[in-house]
């Protein structure tokens, strides 16, 4: 167990180091290749850890400051999946920009180091047992990724970056306030100062925590991390940032960074549930529903493809949040949905990114006939969007079904009705957008690049994964989700 804990250090150090190594290469192509290799290398210890956790239980290290249980292991898997996909996607994504000389070595270096830095930061969030360090990791992701948005400095990108930076910083500041309040709630606890913010400690002594302070803290946490997770009405930065960032970056934003923020909230859910059974549920359901409805409104009226996808992220984060508020079954569903959404949304951004390059715009009114132009990317976008709006047999349908079921089981009928109404509106709206994008006469004479093998593998693989998860859940996944859900909401039982 002790040895396994070292792996955490290895992951963190290696990915930081890779970020540094990116700076020594002399051509963008090399850097991109290195990134692919690097991410794969990082995957090895991560997966080892996850497997270890699965078979031998939670792993901790550094005096319990690092800790990996099923919940974090699950998120680590999702994270690595999204990162691997995005990195490999990035390998060809920049082809055109490299040829045009826009994606220079300097930019590539910056891109590479920030990429690994954000990987590190997110890993830090997931592996820390100390709620303070978790916060530090979360804030770091904000800061690191800010420059990824603004990779090619231009007006809108700067604007997006600024909004992202300020809004998320404010949110994260609240989250810190919340962290402090939670720490304060443990004032009766006679522990060593180093242990006071340890989640494992707090979870064990739930009864002695001061309820009022803990609840106040949770509200701060929810609003704070919720800002980062894109819950309405704190989601305002999200469409801007997603639409301006390069596609691989949007993919990790949507595919994982939002989930990381929610992961933080999950940790606090298990704390606050110790003092009040329903306190978190009510708030989460409320936020979930609100988020779904508001995002639905924007999806309906959206004209920008990437913003559309961004609002879909908002919606799905809302769905996950809703699930988190619906008891153990809901949490299970929410976690499952996390995985599905991450894969699906990354795929969506991949395809949108390439289509954007092909058409030279993200304005959906000017994109049509993408299926004719590129069966891979057009079809991939269609597939991912159809999956996103919840069509069976894709996995997102299954997880949404689980959420509805959870709502029925907990008798949260009003939430279920609103959820279904909201998702129907999203369905109607999004479908209206998808159809003309996919079909019709191509609106550009841009010659489509030949799709590379990695691209094909990515798109088809992601779709196949979504399809598989929609029809069959491997026992391993079921077990891991179950355990993770138990960690978040097991106290209800």
């Amino acid at each position: 167990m002790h040895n396994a804990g070292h792996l955490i250090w290895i992951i963190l150090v290696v990915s930081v180091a890779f970020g540094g190594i990116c700076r020594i290469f002399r051509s963008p192509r090399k850097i991109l290749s290195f990134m692919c290799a690097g991410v794969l290398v990082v995957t090895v210890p991560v997966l080892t850890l996850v497997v270890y956790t699965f078979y031998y239980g939670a792993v901790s290290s550094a005096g319990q400051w690092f800790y990996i249980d099923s919940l974090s292991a699950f998120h680590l898997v999702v994270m690595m999946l999204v990162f691997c996909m995005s990195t490999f996607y990035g390998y060809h994504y920049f082809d055109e920009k490299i040829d045009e000389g826009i994606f220079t070595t300097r930019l590539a270096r910056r891109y590479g180091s920030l990429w690994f830095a954000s990987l590190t930061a997110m890993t830090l969030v997931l592996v820390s047992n100390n709620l303070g360090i978790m916060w530090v990791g979360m804030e770091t992701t904000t800061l690191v990724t800010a420059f990824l948005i603004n990779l090619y400095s231009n007006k809108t990108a700067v604007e997006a970056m600024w909004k992202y930076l300020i809004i998320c910083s404010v949110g994260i500041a609240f989250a810190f306030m919340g962290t402090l309040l939670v720490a304060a709630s443990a004032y009766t606890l006679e522990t060593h100062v180093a242990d006071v913010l340890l989640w494992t400690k707090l979870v064990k002594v739930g009864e002695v925590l001061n309820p009022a302070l803990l609840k106040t803290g949770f509200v701060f946490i929810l609003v704070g991390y919720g800002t980062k997770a894109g819950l309405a009405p704190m989601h305002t930065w999200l469409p801007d940032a997603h639409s301006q960032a390069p596609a691989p970056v949007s993919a990790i934003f949507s595919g994982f960074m939002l989930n990381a923020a929610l992961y933080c909230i999950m940790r606090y859910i298990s704390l606050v549930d110790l003092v009040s059974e329903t306190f978190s549920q009510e708030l989460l359901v409320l936020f979930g529903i609100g988020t779904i409805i508001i995002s639905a409104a924007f999806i309906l009226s959206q004209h920008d493809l990437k913003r559309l996808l961004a609002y879909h992220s908002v919606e799905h984060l809302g769905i996950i949040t809703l699930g988190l508020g619906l008891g153990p079954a809901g949490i299970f569903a929410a976690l499952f949905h996390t995985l599905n959404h991450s894969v699906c949304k990354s795929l969506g951004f991949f395809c949108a990114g390439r289509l954007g390059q092909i058409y030279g715009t993200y304005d959906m009114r000017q994109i049509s006939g993408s299926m004719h132009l590129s069966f891979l990317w057009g079809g991939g976008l269609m597939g991912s969007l159809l999956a996103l709006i919840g069509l069976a047999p894709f996995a997102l349908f299954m997880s949404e079904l689980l959420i509805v079921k959870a709502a029925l089981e907990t008798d949260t009928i009003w939430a279920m009705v609103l959820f279904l109404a909201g998702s129907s509106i999203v369905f109607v709206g999004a479908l209206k957008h998808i159809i003309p994008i996919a079909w019709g006469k191509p609106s550009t004479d841009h010659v489509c690049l030949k799709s590379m093998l990695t691209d094909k593998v990515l798109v088809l693989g992601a779709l196949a994964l979504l399809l598989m998860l929609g029809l069959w859940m491997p026992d391993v996944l079921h077990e891991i989700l179950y355990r993770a859900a138990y960690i978040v909401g097991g106290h209800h039982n």
Partner: protein
Amino acid sequence: MIVFLLSVIIIVASGFAALVTRRSNSLSTFLGVGGVCAGSLIGLIPTFNVLIHGSRLSLHLPWHFAWGSFFVEIDPLSSFFLIPVFGVSILTAVYGAGYLQHYRQTHLLGVHWFFFNLLVAGMAMVAVAGNGVLFLISWEVMSLAPFFLVTFHSDQSKVQHAGWVYLVATHLGAIFLLVFFLLMGVNSGSMDFDHFNPSGYHHLSLLFLLAVIGFGSKSGFIPFHVWLPEAHPAAPSHVSALMSGVMIKMGIYGLFRSLVLLGVPSVGWGYVFIGIGLISGIAGVTFALAQHDLKRLLAYHSVENIGIISIGIGIGMLGLSWDNPVLVVMGMGGALLHVLNHSLFKSLLFLGAGSVQHASGTLEIEHMGGLLKRMPITGMTFLVGAAAICGLPPLNGFISEFLIYQGSVYGSMFLEGATVGAMPAVIAGLALIGGLAAICFTKAFGIVFLGTARREKGVSVRESRLSMKIPMLILSALCLLCGLLGADILKTAAPVLNMVTMNRFLDAIPLELIKAANSLRSVTWVFAGLILILTGLIFFRKWLLSKRYVQEGVTWDCGYIRPTSRMQYTASSFVQPVTGFFRNILQTRNIVSPPHGLFPTKVSLTTKTPDVFEKKFYSPLFEGTKRILFGLRWIQQGRIQLYIAYIVITLIILLIWKVR
């Protein structure tokens, strides 16, 4: 059961094979169609096995998602619906192979066949799914696949719109089903149908309502029918045939299934069905009358026929709740037979429409005319379909309507109390529907196939190829056959009826079935007499004319000197008296450019009859929602200060509300 699953696997696998080989259209077509045919033929084996022996085949496999198992079961009810699924699929696939020849230069047919096979497999799985989750997934596959089939001509914005309407309607319907199954599953602790226990449900009527809306939107109950008139004209004809002939019946299957799952219905439910049925039937046929797009017309007729089926179910349900096996046999039996019959003649009609469209390049009835001379087979089979759908003897349409009539006549005769009023209403409704349908199909057949071509294009029309003719011929033969064998077919429905009545009339149902079958047998005798008489008359006239000189001339023109083909009666004018009668419902818009001056050169009249429900209900609803939601857009103006204010306000509200 394994055989059945094998057939589904064959169908799906051949679909994938078609997708993979999409670069070669002939190969992928061969694989796709071959797979459907082979798979369906194999699938028919267990189907008939179950239906004949009244047994059940089932299979449980462990499955995580299902809160239960991967549970598939062919019981009599499923097998009854599987027959059209497989049977019509084979015919439409063969037809499709010929139909799509035309597009092999421009389209990737492999993709089409992939989704076609998926649709067939999806329908088969829906019919056997014994688990709520499996049912929902199959249902969604079955609903999603046609979306890609409907949008075969995806470059046309009209088709895109049709695809959108279709998918939205079907998905919104599916949401109700989702809640329906989950609610039952949550109440009974398992999603397997055999664990469902109606006595434990709290909201039976709510469940019933969910089922009606969910399945009704697939079947095309008014007012959930709006997708039908959009999707069918857009789709290739074999797809319309399969959708209209079989897929919408899966909604009916679902209704039957939910009856089984929900237990003994309350009286009100029966009335709901009868009410919906009457409205759908009458409004459906009325709207059909006003259409002059051939397939749109047929689509509305699907609505009408679904209405008839629903009336039958309603009568049966009343019988169930009143413990009256006669009504059950007549109503449910009639409904079941009509399912089968409608799947035959409606696919036949759609295939015919497809041939017509193929040949003349249009679906606009007003532009056609005289096609019978150029397309004798298509014309004849279409006539058979038209007569069958009007319920004319000696074809199958009459048999099922006859049973439903009988049920309602029985009800009107022997039942007491104020509630009986529904029965005469059914009789009147059915009679009216029959009369209007006759108008509609004399119009459709008469204007399209008879007279002379109204446009020059009509002159060059050619009969369609063999692979298209054969399915139509088979279907029309089946229409006649089912008309003559009504009694026997009804008898095979005995296990199905026992199932939907939850075995409550185990003794009475066979008895009543025999009675009903006997009167059907008498009908058959009359049919035989009719056929005999007709044959006799044919020979009689032949004999009369054999010694005479038979001349050909022009049509008597009532003294007018230069009649042209443009002067023929048009479809719109043919139905004008009736559409005038129903003008308040139809709200037909006339676009007239009246004659001017002494020698008017150009005069025109165009009529448009959009769907009232769409125009008056759905569009305003969607627009209203959109407007309200667009109102929310102001929250995102781009002002970062405002954004921060949102965060702060949220926080403060939460603190005040939650913490204080």
